[in-house]
């Protein structure tokens, strides 16, 4: 019976004729079968009937709609599809990944401090000056602004993929306003509601305490105040990530404000409240640099706060993330990460980049133009998957147009081989099919430690063979399970005393940090 269902659920899963068949599948090894990380999950899924799967999937969708989790796709609000099969990362895989992310954040912090300071790396001839000055997000307005605790990257989202060998590689860095962490927390909450049985069989590390780490980092950034006042600055309800802004503000217990709620006077930022003005020490802003301060940037922007940049320069307020971080996540500068790591930390990358050709170097550009039909070309400034051209899928006409764009603006483009992102079983119709995924782990820097949330946003490309995972391109997401090391004191989800399962081992030293939402979920299961 279970064998029959399994055949149905995973029927033809590793079909050798599937697109990108060389991609690394995270559940199945082509020779040895189910990989260790996924054994328990596979064993739990196996007995399910396709109808069960559909029932669970509908429950997931309902839960998501109930929670109001949507994202904006070309202006239309839609639920962010959550796939019911989680993605599993073992403790040892995670620890390697985590070290790589921390290393990267530390190097990029040093880089940004240098670029907006003395530019020693340029003076020493390690990086060409033009590389920096030609970057669209090198904001000269930020030159000389020194944050009190030195942190500019309070939150980073480092996008990684697994190559054909299953090794993690960095696809891009996001150092401005990386979004998506609310999906990490909400996906977990939803999954815990719909699949309590799966959590009972796994030691999944908790993600619900993200806001605790974020608040600690923001408070640590404050300029010499004992009880700093932190606010979350949002562009407003029409922003596609407003849900996340409000969730983070609520979880941190701080005010969610818009530009018009803040006021700069004599380089001090105040929040207008019904009880008068309240001094603000840290602005966790989710507004792009260009709209943050009309005195320094777009003058007719009404989203930001006039005078905010000079208040930060005067050391009276901290802007998190700092202005001008985009120079650190430019996709051309990304290709120089090995040099940056070596220069500032004297280390070699723990996480390699994806091989990248730089169109602004004539020799590499020639190769790109020559092999345009087999490469992926990406704008260096792009995000959300816009502007990307997949050579193998493009028509000759599109390739010609792309050739012209690259020649006209070589600094604006990089090219990469088609990375066959790893696959994870994903519900498609009534079966589970391999679909390509990436991962955005979130790192929070408080100036002493870089905390990486054990989990992250796994995005999945739903159409068969698609390698574009952006939610703005119709992708979905998966709950990302980082397994706790065996016999460790790590907090695991749904391990509270309320859940009586045989698998619970009383070996934890710390109490689980679970938000009130999770407690609600537990009650429902009993």
């Amino acid at each position: 019976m279970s064998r029959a269902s399994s055949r149905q659920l995973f029927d033809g899963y590793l079909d050798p004729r599937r697109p990108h068949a060389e991609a690394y599948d995270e559940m199945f090894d082509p020779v040895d079968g189910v990989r260790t990380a996924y054994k328990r999950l596979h064993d739990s899924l196996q007995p399910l009937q396709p109808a069960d799967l559909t029932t669970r999937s509908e429950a997931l969708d309902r839960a998501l709609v109930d929670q109001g989790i949507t994202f904006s796709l070309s202006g239309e609000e839609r639920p962010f599809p959550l796939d019911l099969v989680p993605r599993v990362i073992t403790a040892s895989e995670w620890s390697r990944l985590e070290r790589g992310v921390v290393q990267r954040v530390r190097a990029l912090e040093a880089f940004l401090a240098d670029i907006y300071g003395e530019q020693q790396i340029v003076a020493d001839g390690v990086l060409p000056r033009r590389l920096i000055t030609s970057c669209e997000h090198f904001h000269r307005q930020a030159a000389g602004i020194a944050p009190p605790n030195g942190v500019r990257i309070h939150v980073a989202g480092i996008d990684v993929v697994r190559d054909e060998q299953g090794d993690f590689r960095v696809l891009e860095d996001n150092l401005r306003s990386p979004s998506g962490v609310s999906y990490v927390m909400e996906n977990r909450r939803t999954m815990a509601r719909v699949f309590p049985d799966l959590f009972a069989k796994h030691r999944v590390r908790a993600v619900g305490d993200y806001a605790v780490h974020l608040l600690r980092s923001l408070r640590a950034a404050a300029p010499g105040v004992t009880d700093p006042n932190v606010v979350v600055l949002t562009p407003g309800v029409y922003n596609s990530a407003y849900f996340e802004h409000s969730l983070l503000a609520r979880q941190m217990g701080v005010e969610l404000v818009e530009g018009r709620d803040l006021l700069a006077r004599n380089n001090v930022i105040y929040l207008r409240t019904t009880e008068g003005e309240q001094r603000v020490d840290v602005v966790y802003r989710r507004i792009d640099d260009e709209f943050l301060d009309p005195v320094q940037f777009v003058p007719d922007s009404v989203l930001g706060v006039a005078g905010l940049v000079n208040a930060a320069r005067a050391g009276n307020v901290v802007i998190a993330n700092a202005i001008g971080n985009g120079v650190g996540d430019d996709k051309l500068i990304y290709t120089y990460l090995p040099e940056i790591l070596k220069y500032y930390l004297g280390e070699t990358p723990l996480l390699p980049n994806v091989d990248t050709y730089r169109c602004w170097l004539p020799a590499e550009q020639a190769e790109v133009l020559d092999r345009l039909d087999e490469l992926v070309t990406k704008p260096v400034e792009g995000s959300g998957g816009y502007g990307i051209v997949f050579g193998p899928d493009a028509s000759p006409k599109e390739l010609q147009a792309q050739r012209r764009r690259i020649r006209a603006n070589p600094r604006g483009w990089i090219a990469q081989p088609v990375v066959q992102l790893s696959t994870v079983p994903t519900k498609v119709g009534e079966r589970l099919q391999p679909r390509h995924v990436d991962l955005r782990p979130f790192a929070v820097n408080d100036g002493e430690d870089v905390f990486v949330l054990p989990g992250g946003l796994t995005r999945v490309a739903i159409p068969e063979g698609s390698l574009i995972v952006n939610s703005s391109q119709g992708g979905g997401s998966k709950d990302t399970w980082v397994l706790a090391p065996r016999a460790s004191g790590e907090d695991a989800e749904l391990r509270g005393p309320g859940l009586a399962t045989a698998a619970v081992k009383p070996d934890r030293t710390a109490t689980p940090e679970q938000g009130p939402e999770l407690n609600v979920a537990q009650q429902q299961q009993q």
Partner: protein
Amino acid sequence: MNWRLRVVHTTGYRYATAVTQSYNEARLTPRHDDRQNLMVARLETVPAARAYKYTDYWGTEVNSFDLHTPHTELKVIAASVVETSDQTPPSAEVTWVQLKSPEVLDTYAEYLEWTSYVPKHRELSTVARSLRRGSTPEETVLAVSKWVHDTLKYQRGTTGVHSSAVDAWQAGEGVCQDYAHLTLAMLRAVGVPSRYVSGYLHTKPDAAVGEKVVGESHAWVEAWTGEWWGFDPTNDISIGHRHVWVATGRDYADVSPLKGIYSGDAATAIEVTVDMTRLA
């Protein structure tokens, strides 16, 4: 020749209705280098405000201030005393080949790029190339400046603060800002790194000590041909003791003498006066 000059620059805005809030940055303080020695500088505003000083990316001293009392006029008075001398002619000289070297292209990249004030223009580039023919980079700078001087007619009111080099060239007239931008557009077209200089010009070469004359808020250019040196295309003269420099940048946008954001209706610039007195 060495002069000591007092500069009193008055500028500001008048508003149609009272403004309750305004945020401003003034770039009005003369700089210090081997041709110019800043002795004292002071900035006052009416209504009074406490200014916060910082040095921007380009090395310019910025006075930032905000006002929160209702006002219909903002007046900014920047006063300074500077000692000036004549620019020594550039001693180092590069060849065209050297200007094309990767080191020069990299070091001076910002001064070779196109901006909205200094856009690339095919016809202007052709003219610039014809002026370059048979000349050294240094001679080309002078030839381009002369061409701009002869081509544009000095005329206020035709161009505005947002006009580009091409706008002025097509209009055939403009003010010092336009002369400078047009010169930059042509110099960059032939690969000479060049930058915009904002400052003041004392208008009377034979002024007596103690005589107050009406000066100008002025702009000219500097080119790099082995070293930076300046030229004044508006007047077709070299930079001397009558020039006081305040800021350099890629174009006007980097050195804008006074810019601000305010709440309220339209503002008009008040009459700008620059009083310059030769003190020694």
